[in-house]
């Protein structure tokens, strides 16, 4: 009897479990059914020109960090976007450019709806992305308008002319602040009587002279020159200075000959040795921060913020945090101006050379996205004139006013923009959403003849500090970019930017590049830190290690890739 009772209980429990499982199953089916129904009604609604605003959530992976993101898009701009499109984004922001996460996605075969990548070779290879070309042609008038003929540059390859990646770069950007240069404190230039600063030797003399005058700043030892070399940043700041100081534009680890499209690993250009020798001299004279190659990014920021770093070399975005902190602390004379320094006067800084429409890095729709039409419409919405203005200026009446038909940002709002670290986070303005779609760059005009971005020349001047104006005036300039050659001085690079070109996954070239980078990251700092007498031998060792991994083969393959790109795009 006892066993019988237990058996009954057992059967009952099992039965119950089945019922529960069954219910869930049918639930899912039911919801799926309504889902497709909604989609169909959606489509019909769209056909009758009323917006299908059924709320939808898109998961998204972004290769870059975004400390300003607010969950559930709960900012004035975010709420407006949600209201207009019914789309809620559920993004994941990565801290290392997707280097690990994207390969893991590929390995697992599960993708978010939207992916912002820095090179989609692996994703395309795995068949993870859908072709955007038909979607853009059918559903995205704003994107078409914005991209223009540049849309050809987005095509993947000769064999596969699909568009997998929609660029998220600024279109026709003419940045108000130069992208790369030597950054020197205003106080230094002022005290030394505004000396000429054009070459690396000038820079060294300035640092050395000022450091002698002030061995200490605020009771702490003065640091001549330091650089941010934490993880990938060593490439963007220190290693890139090799070509930046010798008259070439940024093509990543390679130098591309503009005539023959021949690719050379840029350290193998004989002239670059002199640039790194300059660092070696600097170190030998005690002007280079001994911690340059050891410090983490936050240590670097903290050093800049302490006001005792006289100069640094690198891209503008590595300066933001330090400059902001100095401004907030009221140490405006310790903030930095940027100068187009090169190895000698034979070279000019190529920061402003146009690469044309930047292809390669951008946003893609994955094959797991259930409603790609809705997704492309969302991206198209982001690219529309009204949204572009909103993402830059904010909400009318709240963040800017219209006076005499012109957009004007009130002074108190400007003060907030300049000093409130959380301004972007609180408003949703700026890169927060602009990062997900192509956008108009600085200097581009909308239908009313005003700039899309708030970075106009006048506003840039208006936001300068007193001492900044003083230093600029001493050099007869209004903006730092005035010292730089403009985009018109250079031809547009027919291959874009080499670092943007996707390298086929699983190829020898990819492995060779990784090996070369491993060697470079180790050997170049070593060459800089060694004794001057030893520099040549370390550099020779560096060169021979590169040869030993057969770098010529990589250069050859890279050359082919570049040539293919030029051919594809010129059609």
């Amino acid at each position: 009897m006892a066993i019988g009772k237990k058996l009954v209980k057992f059967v009952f429990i099992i039965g119950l479990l089945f019922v529960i499982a069954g219910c869930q199953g049918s639930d899912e089916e039911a919801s799926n059914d309504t889902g497709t129904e909604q989609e169909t009604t959606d489509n019909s609604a769209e056909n009758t020109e009323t917006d299908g605003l059924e709320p939808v959530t898109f998961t998204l992976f972004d290769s870059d960090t975004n400390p300003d993101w607010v969950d559930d898009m709960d900012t004035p701009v975010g709420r407006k976007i949600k209201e207009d499109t019914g789309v809620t984004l559920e993004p994941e922001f990565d801290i290392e450019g997707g280097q690990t996460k994207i390969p893991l996605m590929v390995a697992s075969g599960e993708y978010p709806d939207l992916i912002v990548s820095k090179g989609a070779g692996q994703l395309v290879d795995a068949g993870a992305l859908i072709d955007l070309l038909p979607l853009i042609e059918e559903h995205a008038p704003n994107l078409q308008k914005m991209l223009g003929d540049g849309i050809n540059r987005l095509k993947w390859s000769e064999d596969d002319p699909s568009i997998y990646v929609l660029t998220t770069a600024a279109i026709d950007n003419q940045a108000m602040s130069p992208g790369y240069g030597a950054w020197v404190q205003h106080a230094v230039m002022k005290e030394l009587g505004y000396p000429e600063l054009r070459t690396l030797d000038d820079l060294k003399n300035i640092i050395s002279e000022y450091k002698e005058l002030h061995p200490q700043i605020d009771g702490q030892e003065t640091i001549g020159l330091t650089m941010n070399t934490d993880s990938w940043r060593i490439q963007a700041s220190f290693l890139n200075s090799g070509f930046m100081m010798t008259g070439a534009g940024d093509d990543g680890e390679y130098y591309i000959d503009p005539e023959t499209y021949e690719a050379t690993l840029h350290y193998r250009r004989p002239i670059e040795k002199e640039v790194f020798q300059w660092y070696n001299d600097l170190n030998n004279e005690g002007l280079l921060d001994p911690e340059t190659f050891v410090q983490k990014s936050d240590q670097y920021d903290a050093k800049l913020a302490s006001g005792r770093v006289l100069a640094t070399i690198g891209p503008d975005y590595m300066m933001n945090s330090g400059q902001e902190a100095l401004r907030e602390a009221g140490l405006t004379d310790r903030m930095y101006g940027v100068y187009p320094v090169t190895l000698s006067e034979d070279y000019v800084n190529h920061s402003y050379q146009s690469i044309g429409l930047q292809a390669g890095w951008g946003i893609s729709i994955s094959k797991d996205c259930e409603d790609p039409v809705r997704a492309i419409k969302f991206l198209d919405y982001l690219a529309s004139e009204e949204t572009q203005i909103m993402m830059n200026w904010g909400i009318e009446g709240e963040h800017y006013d219209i006076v005499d038909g012109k957009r004007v940002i009130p002074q108190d709002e400007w003060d907030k923009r300049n000093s409130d670290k959380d301004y972007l986070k609180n408003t949703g303005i700026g890169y927060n959403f602009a990062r997900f779609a192509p956008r108009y760059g600085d200097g581009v005009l909308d239908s009313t003849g005003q700039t899309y971005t708030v970075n106009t020349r006048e506003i840039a001047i208006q936001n300068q500090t007193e001492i900044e104006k003083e230093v600029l005036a001493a050099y007869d300039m209004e903006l730092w970019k005035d010292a730089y050659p403009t985009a018109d001085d250079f031809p547009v690079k027919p291959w874009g930017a080499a670092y943007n070109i996707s390298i086929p996954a699983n190829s020898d070239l990819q492995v060779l590049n990784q090996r070369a980078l491993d060697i470079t990251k180790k050997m170049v700092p070593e060459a800089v830190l060694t004794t001057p007498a030893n520099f040549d031998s370390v550099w020779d060792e560096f060169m021979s290690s590169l040869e030993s991994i057969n770098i010529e083969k990589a250069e050859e393959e890279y050359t082919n890739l570049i040539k293919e790109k030029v051919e594809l795009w010129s059609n």
Partner: protein
Amino acid sequence: METAKEKAHTRGESRMNRFWKHVKNQKLLYAMSLPFVAWVFVFNYLPVWGWTMAFQNFRPGLSFLEQEWVGLEHFITLFQDERFYMVLRNTLAMSFLGLLFGFTIPIIFAVLLNEVRHSMFKRITQTVTYLPHFVSWVVVAGIVTKMLSTDGGIINDLLMGLGIIDSPYQFMAQEKWFWGIVTISDIWKEMGWNAIIFLAAIAGLDPQLYEAAKVDGAGRFRQIWHITLPGIRPTILVVLILNIGHLIQIGFEKQMLLSNPLVVDYAEVLDLYALNYGIGLGQFSYGTAIGIFNSVVSIILLFLANGIFKRYSNQSVM
């Protein structure tokens, strides 16, 4: 003949019967263990199927039958790569250092802490020492670099204050220091946590033994030597053998976060190498080959350690 066959038959039958009887008697126990057996199977045995990748030129998105088979090619590339041997050296060096110090220090710590009479102090010390276990390596790496910095780092300030060195010493830029820095920061982080199991073992020892020892005139050190340490010997052995099994799988967080371009030749470990050259470059097959190498070495080490201990102490974990 017939009877023999019959006998064999009945014997077999009875064995089967006995087995089923057994199962029937303990059916609840079997039922209870079933989910865990399934769990182990799904998460530890099924993934081994993925090892097939190492013998293919694996491309994601293709089905299993469409993959190209390449035999041992990836293993050959691996064993021909100089970098692999450098990385292997670093991995083994850091794990042996970790095992040597990261294993003995918690034991010493547990034994010493057990001797502390003041129970409040004892409890506070225990809590304080195991808390770092919960701090992420990112934070620990930040603290370590800051402490060893030449620019106002506390260690350099201290050494200079004591007059041991004249100018700040660049700890983080020296290749020879890297293994030491990793080991010491690991001990700082994990010492208290690893001591918990030993403290628990000590707490389980019979107090009568200590009383008897005291009557016999044993001092503190005699008691430790003759009662505490022999008492926790089984625990020590089990933990040691398990640690040896993990020798080659030391993870990569600490090495990645503490390293910089100047010391990379002493900082890169197998897992990091597998990540950079395997998954990072989309070479899943190559990455898998490294993974297989790892697992095989681990299994060999585990059996070796277990065999040795079985022989000398008649104790084993398997």
